[in-house]
């Protein structure tokens, strides 16, 4: 199978590398589309009256599964399609509302090759609004260790996320 060449190889990544920032203007459409795309029908993600009067928040806000999708997009924008997610850990610290400018920024925590020969990179990502961190994501993603390697071809016995 001849596909596109890997965009980023494991050997090109080092501890302390910064991932390119992603800046995005959040609108009500962002929040509602994200909630419905993740099949989250709870009203605080589409009904401002409910969010304000029942939840006590200032508006509707991004739901967690859609934030997971934002983090995945952020990581694979950087790695390219050969990057294969192994593990993500989220911590929610605050809400993201329409009108917010969210900024995703990440730093490489380390790079290592496991005993199966799989190249892993750890990254710490923060989603912030006006300098205040709203969500953190610790991610572990596999990258090709050479131009002919592809983490997606690893079956269960060679995939240790």
């Amino acid at each position, binding site marked *: 199978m001849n596909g596109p060449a890997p965009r980023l190889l494991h050997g090109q990544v080092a501890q302390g590398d910064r991932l390119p920032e992603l800046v995005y203007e959040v609108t009500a459409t962002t929040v509602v589309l994200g909630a419905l795309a993740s099949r989250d029908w709870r009203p605080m993600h589409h009904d401002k009256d409910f969010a304000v009067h029942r939840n006590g928040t200032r508006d509707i806000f991004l739901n967690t599964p859609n934030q997971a999708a934002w983090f*995945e997009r952020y990581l694979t924008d950087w790695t390219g399609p050969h990057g294969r997610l192994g593990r993500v*850990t989220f911590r929610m610290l605050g809400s993201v509302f329409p009108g917010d400018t969210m900024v995703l920024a990440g730093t490489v925590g380390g790079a290592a090759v496991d005993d199966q020969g799989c190249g892993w990179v750890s990254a710490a990502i923060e989603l912030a609004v006006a300098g205040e961190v709203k969500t953190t994501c610790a991610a572990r993603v596999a990258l090709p260790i050479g131009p002919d390697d592809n983490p997606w071809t690893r079956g269960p016995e060679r995939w240790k996320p």
Partner: protein
Amino acid sequence: MSGPGTSAALPPALSAALAEHPDPVEAARSLIALEQYPEAGEFPVERGYIWTSCASVENGNPLFWDDGAAEAITGGPVAPPSMISVWFRPHHWAPGRSEAALPLQVHFDLKAVLDLPEAVMTDNTIVFYEPVRPGDRLRTHQVLRSVSDEKVTKLGTGRFWVIEVVYHNQEGELVGIESYTGFGYRRATS
């Protein structure tokens, strides 16, 4: 996930645990490691939702948009790994259903048996195994992993617990494990 969610009638596993262990904490802990709430997704993994999800975050990864790239890299189309829980959220309405199912039922069971009216999720880890592909019929079950001793936080007094949601495909292959840490509590001033 927060707010009241207790059910009027305790589920059978919880009732049995309470019959054997009158102390609610011991009853809750007796459920650790049991596979609970096996469930099949209401519909197969499908590309329409994959595209809607990618559109919602402007994810242009060619794995999801370019069949040639997907064939070359992943042996055919795959779903974004982060969508794993999407395939289990119940329809907003379905014929004959009188009340919406609660996802992560073990969380609500713990609130009920420990009599902790409030709860928050503090963090969430997802580990990804075999890729999820369009047409897959996924199954899931929930496993309680731990219930802490009583803790006092700025929210109130309560207990932390860890619940895993385990996902398999129709071949029985493990595709993912989600791990949630919850804190059930009673408000400090009430």
